């Protein structure tokens, strides 16, 4: 038992070492850029962190920013565990959001609790449907999911715009004037703000969507590591041939993993709509959650619990960025910091190479071959 605990600590340390290094490094590079703009990095970073952690309200706003990142990070990680690269979270999110609004209209007369559950389920359905396409095409026809998903992202964007402009437009449903957004979600279909339970959150609009996100992460952790479904998904991700040999259907698991990933992405859309925006706007571009989700998942080592931490980091960065902007520091600095974190994590092998390089240096011997 003693032994096991030590192992756990070691595992945690091993997994943390690298992301922490990456974060540190990218903050240093970020500082160089800040200096370049003639600002003090110390001031900038103080603004950044006070703006996101300075008081409960601000912290609440950071959690609000964190919420969709948890979802999209976990969504990405789940597919990734099955060896799939779900770059289509963007589109699945959009579909989840628009489905939610649609359901909000159709079921507007249902009582609150039931309506909210239906809304979340609709979001899940929207995302899942959209992810089913690349999933089934990969499983049955071997089409690369990345390309299909990219194509579907744009398709979702335009489809959503069309729906906003016509089907769900207040001018169509309510006969009022035409708007660039859908009808609003009815009041009783909106998620409760946490400040209602914990007044300390004050003005912050962080809502129970955050709790849903955390629960989702925990559930996905359980599914991945404690259930046969997760076992099969991970097996297929590591070795599809062996999985097939063990009676596991590759096609089924690929499709399922993609669908679940999309469902989580869709849930992100649902929670954002029901907890924050209450509608969907006509948009000229992607919301960008998909790409952030990839980053969050990678920094979190594709582990749901790690993702909770890394989503919080990215949420803090994104929220704190506001205060940096207010202090006159270009918002791009945060983008650069994020890019460098991802690059660093992507090149994880650097760390593995370091000992090798050392060895070479000292012994000047043979090239080592990694298994």
């Amino acid at each position, binding site marked *: 038992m003693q032994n096991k605990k030590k192992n756990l600590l070691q595992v945690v340390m091993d997994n943390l070492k690298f992301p922490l290094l990456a974060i540190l490094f990218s903050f240093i590079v970020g500082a160089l850029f800040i200096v370049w703009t003639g600002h003090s990095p110390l001031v900038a970073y103080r603004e950044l962190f006070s703006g996101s952690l300075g008081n409960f309200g601000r912290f609440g706003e950071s959690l609000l920013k964190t919420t969709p990142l948890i979802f999209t990070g976990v969504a990405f990680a789940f597919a990734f565990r099955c060896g799939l690269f779900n770059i289509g979270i963007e589109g699945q999110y959009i579909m989840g959001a628009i489905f939610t609004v649609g359901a909000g209209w159709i079921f507007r007369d249902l009582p609150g609790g039931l309506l909210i559950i239906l809304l979340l389920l609709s979001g899940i359905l929207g995302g899942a449907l959209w992810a089913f396409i690349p999933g089934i095409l990969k499983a049955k026809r071997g089409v690369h999911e990345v390309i299909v998903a990219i194509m579907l992202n744009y398709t979702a964007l335009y489809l959503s715009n069309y729906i906003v402009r016509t089907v769900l437009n207040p001018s169509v449903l309510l006969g009022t004037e035409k708007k660039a957004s859908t009808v609003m979600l009815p009041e009783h279909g909106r998620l409760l703000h946490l400040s209602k339970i914990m007044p300390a959150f004050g003005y912050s609009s962080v809502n129970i969507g955050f709790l849903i996100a955390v629960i989702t992460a925990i559930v996905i952790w359980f599914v991945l590591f404690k259930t046969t479904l997760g076992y099969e998904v991970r097996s297929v991700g590591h070795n599809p041939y062996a999985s097939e040999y063990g009676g596991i259907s590759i096609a089924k698991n690929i499709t399922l993993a993609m669908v679940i990933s999309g469902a989580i992405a869709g849930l992100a859309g649902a929670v954002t709509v029901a907890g924050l925006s209450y509608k969907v706007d006509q948009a000229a571009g992607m919301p960008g959650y998909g790409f952030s989700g990839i980053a969050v998942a990678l920094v979190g080592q594709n582990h749901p619990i790690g993702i909770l931490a890394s989503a919080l980091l990215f949420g803090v960065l994104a929220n704190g960025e506001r205060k940096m902007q207010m202090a006159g520091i270009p918002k791009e600095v945060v983008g650069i910091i*994020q890019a460098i974190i991802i690059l660093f994590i992507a090149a994880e092998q650097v760390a593995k190479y370091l000992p090798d390089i050392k060895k070479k240096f000292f012994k000047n011997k043979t090239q080592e071959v990694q298994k």
Partner: protein
Amino acid sequence: MVVFIALLASALRLATPLIFSALGGVFTERSGITNIALEGMMIMGAFFAILVTEFTNMPWLGVLAAMVAGILTSMILAVLSIHLKGNQVVVGTAINLFATSITAFLLELVWKRSGQTDSVERALTTNPFHFLENIPLIGKLFSGMTPFVYLAFVAVAVSYYVLYKTPFGLRIRAVGEHPRAADTVGINVYKIRYICVGISGMMAGISGASMSLGTISLFREGMTSGKGFIALAAMIFGKWHPVGAMFASLFFGFCEALQIQASTLGFDFVPSEFLQMLPYVATIIVLSGFIGRAVAPKAVGTAYEKGHR
């Protein structure tokens, strides 16, 4: 007829940046590297083309700068994915984010405002072969044709020649299919891959320049609007072949031109959103094998480890 020529001319212009980037994609993927960073390299190219032209007033120097910027950006992908064996798609994603941020950052630094640079005085937006426009009937096809349009087709021919008619091309294709086989006959797999990623950076750089210097003579944030991803799709659509990639790019260009011309052609009863979806949906259908299966180079996406079996 006039409308058709206009449509064609429009498609050619819209396809030009796609052709360059898709060719870049062909080179990288043929050598075994997935290149999702085309978009980022295009952004870099578009920006530095304008930056250098702004300060030197020599647009061709701007194009050169775009190429260099593209190549340098591509080297991030090369080093991280070839030597350090990082996940190629992840590295690409990061490069895209990086390029978006850094260009916006430099834009503010240099022009003291955000969003958009000034127009450069001299750009490359005009047809270098004006006499072609006097050809009866099809002359209109050439109006608004920038040097980049011609260059794109030259690039297709050169790429085809290099890939299929030279020893270097043979080696590229071998490295993408079976790097170990190439290694055992003394071909430096890493070197080939570096060169190919570099070529893609160069191509995407020109592609970006064709949009900034060649089209609107300024740089705007977000101006590439996902064209790098479309180029990637065009490359796959074109079955990893330069000529195929060209036709796929033309198809995408044509779809967009069609959408623009919808009202003149009289089918604006189709909601524009659906016309916009057309190329994407078409790609999915093609990829699904309903029109013919495309086969990727075997080794694409996997890092090659020397001395490993």
